[in-house]
């Protein structure tokens, strides 16, 4: 359906569960929607040989990330029948157990919502210039890798 202009999808710090709940509630007036597909990324307290992850500090090349996101969105709106799509990604420090990514895709039917949501999450992981630095319990840091 309608494409949206370039907007800043970065949120300073963790994404609050309240924001997610409010976002869901905000869609109750759009009565042509039959399916929401939601992905939430949570910072995991990975234990590795260097130490245990306590938090991830995210940085980005913001101008490029916003432009890339705009193109990814346009491609997904062309490929699938979507009512709307909202993405929020944390920037700065997010502690283990907190939410760092919120992807919310709505459509008339489930299949387009689910497929577009999955493609968006993969694109965020591999196409957007965002970097995570894991802060360990011993104050060491390790640069996160996506697989």
């Amino acid at each position: 359906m309608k494409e949206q202009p370039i907007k800043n999808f970065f949120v300073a710090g963790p994404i609050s569960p309240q924001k997610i709940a409010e976002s869901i509630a905000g869609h109750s007036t759009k009565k042509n929607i039959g399916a929401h597909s939601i992905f939430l990324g949570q910072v995991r307290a990975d234990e590795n040989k260097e130490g245990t992850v306590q938090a991830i500090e995210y940085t980005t090349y913001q101008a490029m990330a916003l432009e890339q996101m705009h193109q990814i969105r346009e491609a997904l709106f062309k490929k699938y029948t979507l009512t709307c799509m909202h993405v929020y990604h944390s920037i700065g420090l997010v502690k283990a157990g907190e939410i760092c990514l919120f992807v919310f895709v709505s459509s008339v039917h489930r299949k387009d919502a689910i497929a577009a949501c999955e493609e968006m999450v993969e694109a965020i992981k591999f196409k957007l210039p965002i970097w995570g630095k894991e802060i360990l319990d011993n104050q060491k840091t390790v640069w996160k890798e996506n697989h």
Partner: protein
Amino acid sequence: MMVLFFGNLVDITQQSELAWPFIHNTMQLQQVLYEQYPALQTAQYVMAVNGKMIQTNTILQEGDTIAFMPPFSGG
């Protein structure tokens, strides 16, 4: 010209942003940066000129912004 570094590359250069005198192409820029920051040569990265990813040596213009970016790890 402005040169930007991100992620673990900042650990090598110790700065995220460098003002750099005009240089003709990205390969020449890489060479001079390797002299200044030898560890950059073995680092894994991709480059972007004015926010657009490049795959090959690219001619530069006055005022361009060149970004050095390690593998992305968002989400």
